[in-house]
Structure formats: structure tokens, C-alpha cells
């Protein structure tokens, strides 16, 4: 049956209300099973030996002593992970990132691994592995890595996007340029020009649950993997590819996930655990320590950004240019290119240009972190907007409204926008009572806006009706934010039954077709769409069974509020049949009743948000305390407002941590100095006030309920919202995030000395 994804305005009974998430009780009582909560008979403990050097040739690895240790069942190096990637450089990079192949590329890079009968034996075995390193010069700063004098990390990297093509390799993997109009003419027409440079440091997604898995490979090529992941189907494909397994024979089950935020979209220990298991012919469990998570998974880029804005006296921005330098760790990435797409996306600026430089450094391979690349670009652009507003003596919010993007505006990356919500969020911020709340001494208020694309992707869903009328909904998108509740609500809404009668589960990879990662704010959007269609398929079957039961044509049966109703002439005396009644008889009317759907959910609607931040800066310590924070974001349609608000608050909290405290600190030796939560300071509940939220609903025209993804957008505005608030509180413009107490204090002192 063909399905139409167009938005239909309708009244909902269940969607839009609030239900407790079905996984809630298990999670707060400790019953929920995460990545480290599986075990198998005969399982071994896997541990990884990691490079203590930022960059080093690995001359020799001698594993013989480790192999001889009693209780050690397998020891592996890259030789146990043969390169099957063919011409796929992206997969080859993943393989090399999981286990060094002759060269250690960052502090923490995996060099070898062991599987032993217990933790102590495994730790002892690691100490017995002898590795001979030859240290090489290293570089960890994005600007330094671009200098011609920088040590080159891969001699196969010749900058793409530069004419003529360079003859020498460098650490610059690509240059991107995009934009519209004529920026020179635009600046020439400007009455006021603002130019500023910004830097942001590297952060980690900071999920509380470390990477963990239980891998079991059999000699016949079948295997199982229990793992904490944002996408078990993608993990299956990648691990099967790297290990030379058939996709259908590798069964991957996703555990509950204790946070991912983009950091669990890639494999690190999983191929290693599979290889150890294959060699030992026993299950292998691997759980990363917090130190390993910081040093050797996928943090964000650190960046260096220049912004120039030009405007007329009336506030119309005539030109905007951004040059964005992003490091992707020790392998090529597209992070700067992504930043170019988002930098000016909230605005209608006829003459704009963004230039992105993707750079390699001796740091871990960067992975996505909620709206990847956008927060840093927004820090720069949204700070510059406030600086421009100040020059123009305009209110910051009014400058944004004057130049806001609307339906019909040309995006900086090319296409014309359909209906978008940025203007609505800015107007809602302007009208919000927070904007009129009184500020105390040393306090300041800042606003900022942000954008994320959101995606759809491949989705497969199964809906099965039990003989008592209760329903199983099997989905393939990992639940990172309460989507099991929202999806059950959608199924209940479509079928016309109570929410409590639908149980949503995340199925393993043998039970459904391929599902893309839960990333890009796609979980509820795409599985929700597939659930609607699967429910409608099931309804067709229910109607057919009713028609058969009554002996009337199918066209004379309609589905209303959970019941088959006989319509048309002569059927008025037939009582309605409930879903439960039809299900009870299903064994005698044709068998189990189900609906199924595969869809590539295109048409994901863009997400826009505007934030208000009140900060109090202690002039003696430079410490900033958030005293009030409001998120206004367009959700299209909030299926369960509790979990939409949760995403707004979570994204804002992570952005605030990024703005105020979080950074990777590398020493001159290229080693990470602060791989732990004590010295890498993320916000905790006591650091922040309750974050207020306002959900706007501008329907996405390409989803039956109008849903837009919400998970990512709200990490984009906070860096600048906080920076603008600090500027208004202190008169100091902070251009280097995190705006930690030492940095703010130094800036305040400099201001005092200048004054």
C-alpha cells in the first residue's frame, strides 16, 4: 500500500499528551541492562594497550610473554584485523583508528589487545606486551597544524578544493567554499563593519555510560554482539565488513544506552572485541574506562574561526564572511564543510561567503556531537551579531529579526527554504516574560539562535497484534530520549486504542530490515513515520477480517476509534467489532494480524531555536553562574511534550557546559592532561537552574503529523547566548570558549588595566 507523507491537520486523542516513558522505572531502579550488563558462560575480559605517545612509529610489538601468561586466551594486534576494506578509504580509516597499523597517531590510540579469564590477568598481560616506539614530531593545535612547518600526519593527504592541486602533502584535507552574491560589493555598501576571531576548544559528548560490549564469534562465521550504540544495524554492517563476516550472521542487540549524543555512532572496541573472541573462540566482554573514553573515542573538533559582518545603519546586513578552521583528529573529516553550511543559515543575507578548512592533528578521530560543527560556528556568528547590534545601537533581538531567514530565502548552501520556524522562535523570545525580568548587579542577558538540518533515513518497523488485543511495536531506532513512549503513542493513536495496550521494543538486527543510526534527530521522526504506516497496514488487515467475519465487501468497512464499523446500505444492524474482538478470532480468520513498513523517511524538517540566557559573573573569580535560561524551539509537532522538553533542556545543558567549562587540555607532549570528569567539568544538576522551555509547532509539511526532529538544535545557541550574556554583564567580549573563570578573569583584569 502506498503511503503519503504529507502533513494532515487533525485532532489528536493521545499524541500531544504526556505519558511516563516505559523504560523509566527500570532505569531508576537499576534493573535496566546497559552495555556492560550482559554476560555469557566462559566469557573473557578484554583490555586494550594504548599508545602513550601523540605520534610514534611502532617498530616492534612482542606479544609472546603476554600469550604465555596463565589465563590469557588471545592477544591481538593489527595483524589479527586484516585490511578487507578494498578501495574504501573511509572504512580503512575506521579500521586503523580501532587498532594502530604501524603508527600510533594520538595519545590513547589502540596498539594491541588481550582477552583473559579475569580483569587482573588481562591487566597483567597488557604489561607483558613489549612495544618499541620511535617518537615522531606531533601537532595538536588546529592553526599550528596548518603551518607549512607542521609535521605531516599522513603523506597521502593533498588538500582537496584548492587550485592548483598541491604538490606536497599537508594536514589540510580539504578547503570548502560556499555562498551567494558578491561580498566585496556588500562590504563596500556597508556603513558599519565588524570583524572578530574566535576559538573553541575540543569537547566530549560526556555520556555517563562508557562504551561496552559482549562479543561472541563462532568458528562457523556466526557471531553475536551485545552493545551500547546509537545504531546497531550500522554497527552490524561496519563490524561485518571489518571482520569479513556475513551481515545476516552477525546478530547485534542494542542495550539501553546511557547517552550517546553522536559519540556512539562509531565503533572503537567492538571490532577489537570481535577479533579477540574469534581468536579465543570464547565470548569477550569489553568495557572502556573513563580515561579511555576521553582519550580514545570521538570528541568534537576544536576550531578557530574568523567572522566579518557588514551592515547599513538601519540594520540590514549587506555582507557576511566566515572562515572556519576545524580539526578532525588524526584522519580526514568534513567538519569544516558542515560548519560552512550552518554558519549563516538563520539569516537572509544576499552576499555571504563561508570558507572551511578541514585539518588533521594528532588527536582522536573526531565524531559527531549533537548538531556537529554548528555550535562553534554559531558561537562565532551569533557573538558577532551582538557586536554588530551594539555598533548599530540596535537591540540584539531586533537585528536578528531584521535579517531573519524565511520561506523563500536562499540557504547559504544553495537550496531555497520551505516553511521554517526561525522568525517564530525569535518573535517568541522577544515576547517572552524572561526578557523583561529584572537583572541584578553583575548580571547580564544574552540571546542567540541556532539551526540544525535534521535527517530522515532508512527505517523498518513491525507492528504485531496479540490475541488479547495488546500490540507489540518492534522498531530499529535506538531509544535515546524517550521515543519508545512517543512511538507507542503514535501506534495507539492510529489504531484507536489505549496507550497502555501498546508495547514498543527495540528489535535486534535479525528481526527487522536495516535501520539507520539514531542521529540527526531522526528517531521519532522516521520511526514515527514508519509506525504510522505500519499501523495503517494493520488496520487494512483488521478491516479485511471484519469484512470476512460479516460477509460484506471490504469497501463497506471503515475503521473508527479502534473499531471496525460496517458502513453502507443494509449493514446498520451489524455491531461494531473492536480491535480486541477481531484479534481474539485472528487464528480462525487467517492467522496473526500485523502491519509492516520500510521507508526512507525523507523530508525531515529543519529545526530552529532561539535561547535567552541570564548570567551572573563574579568579578573576583571570573566564575559565571547561569541564573535563568529559556529555550524556544520549533518541534513541528510534539508527540510527547515531556520528552521534547527533555531534549531542549539536555541540549542546552551540554551547550552551557561547552560554553563555560569543558575543554580538552593537551600538554606540550601531546598527551591529554584531563581525561576524567574531575578535571573535565560537565554541568551537574546543582550547577544550573531549571531550564524553561517553550515548544512551537510549525508543522513540517512532509510528515503526516508535522513532526520535526528536536534532539540536536538546542546545543547550537548556548555558546553564544552565554557569551552575549557575559558581554552584557561585564562589558567584555569573550572570543575563546570555554569562557572558564581563568579566561574571564584575565579579560576582566585586562579591561580594568585598559580603563
Amino acid at each position: 500500500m502506498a503511503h503519503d507523507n504529507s502533513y494532515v491537520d487533525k485532532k489528536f486523542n493521545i499524541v500531544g499528551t504526556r505519558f511516563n516513558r516505559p523504560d523509566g522505572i527500570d532505569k531508576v531502579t537499576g534493573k535496566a541492562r546497559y552495555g556492560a550488563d550482559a554476560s555469557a558462560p566462559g566469557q573473557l575480559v578484554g583490555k586494550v594497550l594504548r599508545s602513550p605517545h601523540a605520534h610514534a612509529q611502532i617498530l616492534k610489538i612482542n606479544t609472546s610473554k603476554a600469550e604465555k601468561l596463565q589465563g590469557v586466551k588471545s592477544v591481538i594486534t593489527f595483524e589479527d584485523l586484516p585490511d578487507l576494506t578494498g578501495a574504501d578509504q573511509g572504512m580503512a580509516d575506521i579500521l586503523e583508528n580501532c587498532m594502530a597499523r604501524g603508527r600510533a597517531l594520538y595519545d590513547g590510540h589502540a596498539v594491541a589487545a588481550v582477552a583473559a579469564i579475569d580483569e587482573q590477568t588481562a591487566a597483567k598481560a597488557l604489561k607483558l606486551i613489549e612495544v618499541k616506539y620511535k617518537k615522531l614530531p606531533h601537532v595538536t593545535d588546529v592553526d599550528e597544524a596548518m603551518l607549512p612547518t607542521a609535521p605531516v600526519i599522513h603523506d597521502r593527504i593533498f588538500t582537496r578544493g584548492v587550485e592548483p592541486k598541491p604538490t606536497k602533502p599537508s594536514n589540510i584535507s580539504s578547503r570548502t567554499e560556499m555562498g551567494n552574491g558578491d561580498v566585496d560589493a556588500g562590504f563596500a555598501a556597508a556603513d558599519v563593519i565588524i570583524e572578530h576571531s574566535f576559538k573553541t576548544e575540543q569537547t566530549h559528548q560526556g555520556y555517563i555510560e562508557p562504551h561496552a560490549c559482549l562479543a561472541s564469534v563462532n568458528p562457523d562465521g556466526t557471531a553475536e554482539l551485545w552493545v551500547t550504540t546509537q545504531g546497531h544495524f550500522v554497527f552490524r554492517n561496519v563490524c561485518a565488513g571489518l571482520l569479513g563476516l556475513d551481515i545476516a550472521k552477525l546478530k547485534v542487540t542494542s542495550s539501553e544506552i546511557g547517552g550517546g549524543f553522536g559519540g556512539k555512532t562509531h565503533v572503537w572496541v567492538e571490532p577489537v572485541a570481535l577479533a579477540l573472541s574469534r581468536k579465543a573462540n570464547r565470548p569477550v566482554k569489553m568495557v572502556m574506562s573513563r580515561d579511555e573514553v576521553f582519550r580514545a573515542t570521538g570528541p568534537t573538533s576544536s576550531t578557530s574561526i574568523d567572522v566579518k559582518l557588514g551592515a547599513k545603519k538601519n540594520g540590514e546586513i549587506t555582507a557576511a564572511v566566515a572562515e572556519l578552521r576545524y580539526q578532525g583528529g588524526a584522519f580526514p573529516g568534513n567538519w569544516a564543510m558542515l560548519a560552512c553550511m550552518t554558519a549563516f543559515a538563520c539569516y537572509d543575507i544576499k552576499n555571504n561567503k563561508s570558507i572551511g578548512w578541514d585539518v588533521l592533528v594528532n588527536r582522536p578521530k573526531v565524531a559527531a556531537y549533537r548538531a556537529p560543527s554548528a555550535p562553534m560556528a554559531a558561537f562565532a556568528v551569533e557573538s558577532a551579531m551582538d557586536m554588530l547590534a551594539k555598533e548599530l545601537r540596535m537591540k540584539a533581538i531586533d537585528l536578528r529579526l531584521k535579517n531573519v531567514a524565511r520561506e523563500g530565502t536562499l540557504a547559504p548552501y544553495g537550496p531555497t527554504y520551505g516553511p521554517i520556524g526561525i522568525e517564530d522562535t525569535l518573535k517568541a523570545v522577544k515576547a517572552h516574560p524572561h526578557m523583561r525580568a529584572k537583572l541584578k548587579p553583575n548580571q547580564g542577558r544574552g540571546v542567540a539562535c541556532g539551526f540544525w538540518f535534521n535527517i530522515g533515513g532508512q527505517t523498518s518497523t513491525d507492528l504485531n497484534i496479540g490475541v488479547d488485543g495488546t500490540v507489540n511495536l518492534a522498531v530499529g531506532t535506538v531509544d535515546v530520549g524517550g521515543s519508545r513512549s512517543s512511538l507507542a503513542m503514535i501506534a495507539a493513536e492510529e489504531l484507536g486504542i489505549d496507550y497502555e495496550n501498546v508495547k514498543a521494543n527495540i528489535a535486534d538486527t535479525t528481526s527487522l530490515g536495516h535501520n539507520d543510526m539514531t542521529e540527526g534527530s531522526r528517531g521519532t521522526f522516521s520511526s514515527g513515520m514508519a509506525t504510522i504506516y505500519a499501523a495503517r497496514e494493520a488496520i487494512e488487515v483488521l478491516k479485511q477480517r471484519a469484512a470476512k467475519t460479516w460477509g460484506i465487501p471490504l469497501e463497506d468497512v471503515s475503521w473508527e476509534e479502534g473499531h471496525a464499523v460496517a458502513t453502507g446500505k443494509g449493514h446498520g444492524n451489524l455491531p461494531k467489532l473492536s480491535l480486541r474482538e477481531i484479534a481474539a478470532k485472528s487464528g480462525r480468520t487467517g492467522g496473526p494480524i500485523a502491519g509492516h513498513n520500510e521507508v526512507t523517511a525523507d523530508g525531515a524538517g529543519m529545526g530552529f531555536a532561539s535561547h535567552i540566557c541570564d548570567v551572573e559573573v563574579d568579578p573576583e573569580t571570573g566564575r559565571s553562574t547561569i541564573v535563568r535560561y529559556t529555550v524556544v524551539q520549533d518541534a513541528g509537532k510534539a508527540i510527547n511534550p515531556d520528552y521534547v522538553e527533555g531534549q531542549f533542556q539536555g541540549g542546552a545543558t551540554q551547550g552551557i557546559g561547552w560554553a563555560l567549562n569543558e575543554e580538552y587540555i593537551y600538554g606540550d607532549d601531546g598527551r591529554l592532561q584531563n581525561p576524567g570528569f574531575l578535571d573535565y567539568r560537565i554541568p551537574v544538576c546543582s550547577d544550573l537552574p531549571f531550564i524553561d522551555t517553550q515548544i512551537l509547532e510549525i508543522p513540517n509539511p512532509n510528515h503526516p503529523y508535522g513532526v520535526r526532529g528536536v534532539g540536536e538544535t538546542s546545543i547550537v545557541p548556548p555558546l553564544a547566548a552565554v557569551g552575549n550574556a557575559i558581554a552584557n554583564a561585564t562589558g567584555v567580549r569573550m572570543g575563546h570558549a570555554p569562557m572558564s573563570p581563568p579566561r574571564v578573569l584575565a579579560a576582566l583584569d585586562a579591561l580594568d588595566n585598559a580603563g
Partner: protein
Amino acid sequence: MQAETIAQMMEYLAEKFPNLRDVLQTDVAVSIDGQIFRDDWTQTIPSGAEVYLIPRIEGG
């Protein structure tokens, strides 16, 4: 260029610019009149539509 679907357009481009074939296969999404298609290449392209090739964004 005549193309009724994204697949036809991609094939045409890959033949005209062979060194782009790999990039077109994996790294590109298509915007048709402002709506972004990342996956389904059977999608039809209406006559006179505004078509852009843009990076295939993922997310976090």
C-alpha cells in the same frame, strides 16, 4: 540534461565527470525545490524544479 529521477541524474553526472562517481555515490544529498533527499534515488524530479547537490549530512 534530461533526467526524470535522481538516479538518472546521478548516472548522467557520473558519466560526464567520472572522477566524481565515488563522491556522488556516498557523500551527496539532493535538494529538490528545497526538500532534501538523502537516500531514495528513485525520487522523481519535477520539470523545472530547483535542484542542488549538497553534502550528505548526518548528525549526532
